């Protein structure tokens, strides 16, 4: 009797509740930014326009998604141990997520597994790392970029001539690599670009890749290597550089030596100085990536991964070949100069 009345009353309450609540619509769903998240971003190097742009992209995303971004990078791309230490440090600080541009494919693998052990999601940006625990890779297809570079350079040389390549995996590690050939200690993106370039060039019997030099990401060293290359191979007709510092070094040398009519060059990435070289004809083309997008998307996917949203395994932000003709296309202007202010 009493219970029946109680049940009736409750039923009525529920009914009223329903009628009342039906009048109110739910709040819209978007990525919640109420909680500040600590995301650590560790890239290869703390200088250079390229990494600066990546950082800016990441900061834009950090601002949008309420992320406290800690940006860390060693002084040079070859300081793998330093980078490993930084990842370990982030693990010890219990970062919510780690975004990593690995300087070494295998060198960073172990520490990434370690991060995964502590349930810290790791997002790979620009350069992949040899771990299956990486949640997603955000960056360009390096192999394809290398092929694009080769295609243009060979085109410029009309299919014949000697080519020199300036890549960026450090020399010291190359020694190790020669000792234990099975372990790939180089940065994944550098290797892939080189592989793509060489595989494409191999189709042309008259194209000879006479030298591949490796710089540890300093312009001075790149200049030195370029000079050496030019001295060693006087018949060199084409130079392909596979990252920003290498490009700047090589470009400077060619410009200063006034070799721009003799030697064709396809560069990599788009620093303002590189674009100036492109405009004055020292460099015929450059392969650009989307560093801003890389940085932005890496942080965005890190946040999504933390939110439990399914993230794609691989995000290709694309590469584009820019030359004098298309550099002023409005869409390319936007890509080349994302910084309005």
């Amino acid at each position, binding site marked *: 009797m009493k219970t029946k009345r109680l049940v009736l009353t409750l039923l009525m309450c529920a009914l009223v509740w329903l009628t009342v609540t039906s009048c109110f619509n739910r*709040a819209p769903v978007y990525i919640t930014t109420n909680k500040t998240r600590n995301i650590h971003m560790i890239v290869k190097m703390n200088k250079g326009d390229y990494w600066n742009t990546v950082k800016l992209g990441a900061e834009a995303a950090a601002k949008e998604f309420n992320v406290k971004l800690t940006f860390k990078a060693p002084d040079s791309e070859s300081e793998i141990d330093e980078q490993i230490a930084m990842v370990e440090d982030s693990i010890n600080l219990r970062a919510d997520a780690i975004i990593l541009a690995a300087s070494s494919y295998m060198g960073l693998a172990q520490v990434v597994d370690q991060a995964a052990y502590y349930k810290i999601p790791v997002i790979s940006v620009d350069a992949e790392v040899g771990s299956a625990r990486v949640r997603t890779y955000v960056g360009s297809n390096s192999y394809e970029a290398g092929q694009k570079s080769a295609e243009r350079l060979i085109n410029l040389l009309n299919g014949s001539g000697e080519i020199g390549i300036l890549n960026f995996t450090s020399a010291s590690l190359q020694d190790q690599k020669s000792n234990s050939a099975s372990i790939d200690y180089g940065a994944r993106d550098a290797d892939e670009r080189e592989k793509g370039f060489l595989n494409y060039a191999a189709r042309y019997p008259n194209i000879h890749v006479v030298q591949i030099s490796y710089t540890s990401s300093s312009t001075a060293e790149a200049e030195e290597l370029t000079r050496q290359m030019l001295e060693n191979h006087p018949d060199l007709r084409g130079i392909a550089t596979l990252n920003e510092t290498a490009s700047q070094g090589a470009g400077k040398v060619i410009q200063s030596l006034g070799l721009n009519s003799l030697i064709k060059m396809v560069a990599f990435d788009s620093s303002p100085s590189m674009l100036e070289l492109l405009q004055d004809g020292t460099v015929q083309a450059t392969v650009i990536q989307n560093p801003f997008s890389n940085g932005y998307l890496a942080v965005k996917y890190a946040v999504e991964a933390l939110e439990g949203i399914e993230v794609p395994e691989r995000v290709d932000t694309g590469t584009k070949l820019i030359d004098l003709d298309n550099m002023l296309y409005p869409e390319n202007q936007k890509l080349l100069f994302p910084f309005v*202010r």
Partner: protein
Amino acid sequence: MTKSKAYFFPLRPQPGTRGRIRLSAKLRSIQLIITLSFTAVAVLVAVIVSSMLYNKFAKTAEENANLNMQQIIEQVNYNLELYVKGMSNIFETAEEQVTTSPSIDSPLLYERMDTLMSSREDLVSIALFTPQGRYVTGTPGQNMRVNTQLQSQSWFTNAQKTTDISYSAPHIQNLFKGQYNWVVSISKMIEYKENGELKRGILLIDFNFRTIDQLSRQVKLGKRGYAYILDSLGNIVYHPQQQLIYAGLKYENVEPVLAYSFRSYLDESTGEKRFITVRTLEETGWKIVGVAYYDEIVTTKRDLNQFLFWFLAAVILCAIAVSVFLSWLIASPIRKLERTVKQVGEGDLNTPINVSGAYEVEQLSRRFNLMLQRIRQLMDQIIYEQETKRKGELEVLQSQINPHFLYNTLNSVIRLAERGKNEEVITMIQSLSKFFRISLSKGNNIITVQEELDHIRHYLVIQSFRFKNKFRFEIKAQDEVLPLQTIKLILQPIVENALYHGIEMSPDEGLILISAELQDNLIVIRISDNGIGMSKETLHNILNGGSKSAGGSGVGVRNVNERIGLYYGREFGLTFESELEEGTTITIIFPAIGQNEGQENTAGGETS
């Protein structure tokens, strides 16, 4: 217990069938009805009031937010207009300086250009080109790059197409060495003098975005809202997330914006409701677009929502609590009353009803108590009457074969027979026989007046033998009275009384007059004697049953009165008029009932 009850009270609702009707009965209970209706009314009122309030407030809030946003955008529009005017002013100044300068390579012009350049931070460069694209002059320190492709750039082609000032879309300035800047170019075909020769050339002034940026950055439309600027072709001049848009990471739906120059609308292309306000700058054709997130505009609405929600919840809870309490207050005394009444109904008439509560309920209980009291009285009365009736009937039964009377009468007969008075013996025996026949009258309690008068006549005949003609008697009756009905043996006790107490004591010859007549549908039978009469005390005693007729035939006068009262009603019965030494008259009055109705009446009387 219940079984026997059911057996005794078959008409009462039985417990077996109560289960099924319980729920519906429950639903019809006062408490539930009051609770439900009160709650319903309260909730309805609350809902209506709050929805009205909500609509009113929400509408106002939305309107205010819209108005506010439009005002902000207007403000930005105004500022930008001023800025663009400033830009065109600078352009005109530069133009004037170039055209009025006697020669294009005069150092004075050079200096003026420099001054103009340093006057504004957002000026990037001033330059003059020939229609063929050759650099003529410009602000100092500018070195042209190679491969500028300036002839294909929009500011160059626009200047050649029209004579007005033209504003370019945002683009990269690649003309001069140094930095690559995003600029907006203003250009116009003008005339200048070079070495005294009048020539045509294109004047170009580049502005960077700093001021536009500053103007637009101040715009705050809620937490997430923002404003952006489009040029007339849909290129984004300013956007707070310009980089993201340039990198292709974000997208702004500009098509509906471009279609109108002055508009406010709701956009849902991104899946979120966004309120968009468009204003257009006259000179440049730029559009200022304010984007406010609808859910932020309606934050007040949501707050209100929440408030009203809790308010409603509270009101409903209160309403339920109050109505439950109220209904309990009303229903519980009624229920208590019902329980008590039920107890009474089950036979416990002595249950006192003391229900406190509402005035009506208290009143009801008081009335019920009074009723109960009355019922108890009536019950007592019925019990008393039934007992008296039974006793009276028993007495009548006894008087029918009164052995004393029989013995006396038979003694008289014997005496007469000894004297050889055969005639008289026969009369005596005949009378006795008829007397008893009517006395018994087949056990019927009701006889005709005729029979009753016959009966008393036989009695008087027998008594007159016994009293040796000490009295006379006379019986008169209207003919219409004779077939009417009466209870039997109502006259005999009175006549007996008159004989033994009135006439026997009197020295004179007695006279007993009996008359029966119909008056106003009442049968009036008068028995009068001229005996010694009765004192007031005796009269009183007779009426109140204080004394028994000493040596009477057994059926007392009071018994007659009782029987008449019980049978016909209390208003009927005997009346006495008596005076000492003069005699007594007793009048019996009872309603006239015919034979047929009488039978019905008798039947009804017996069953009731």
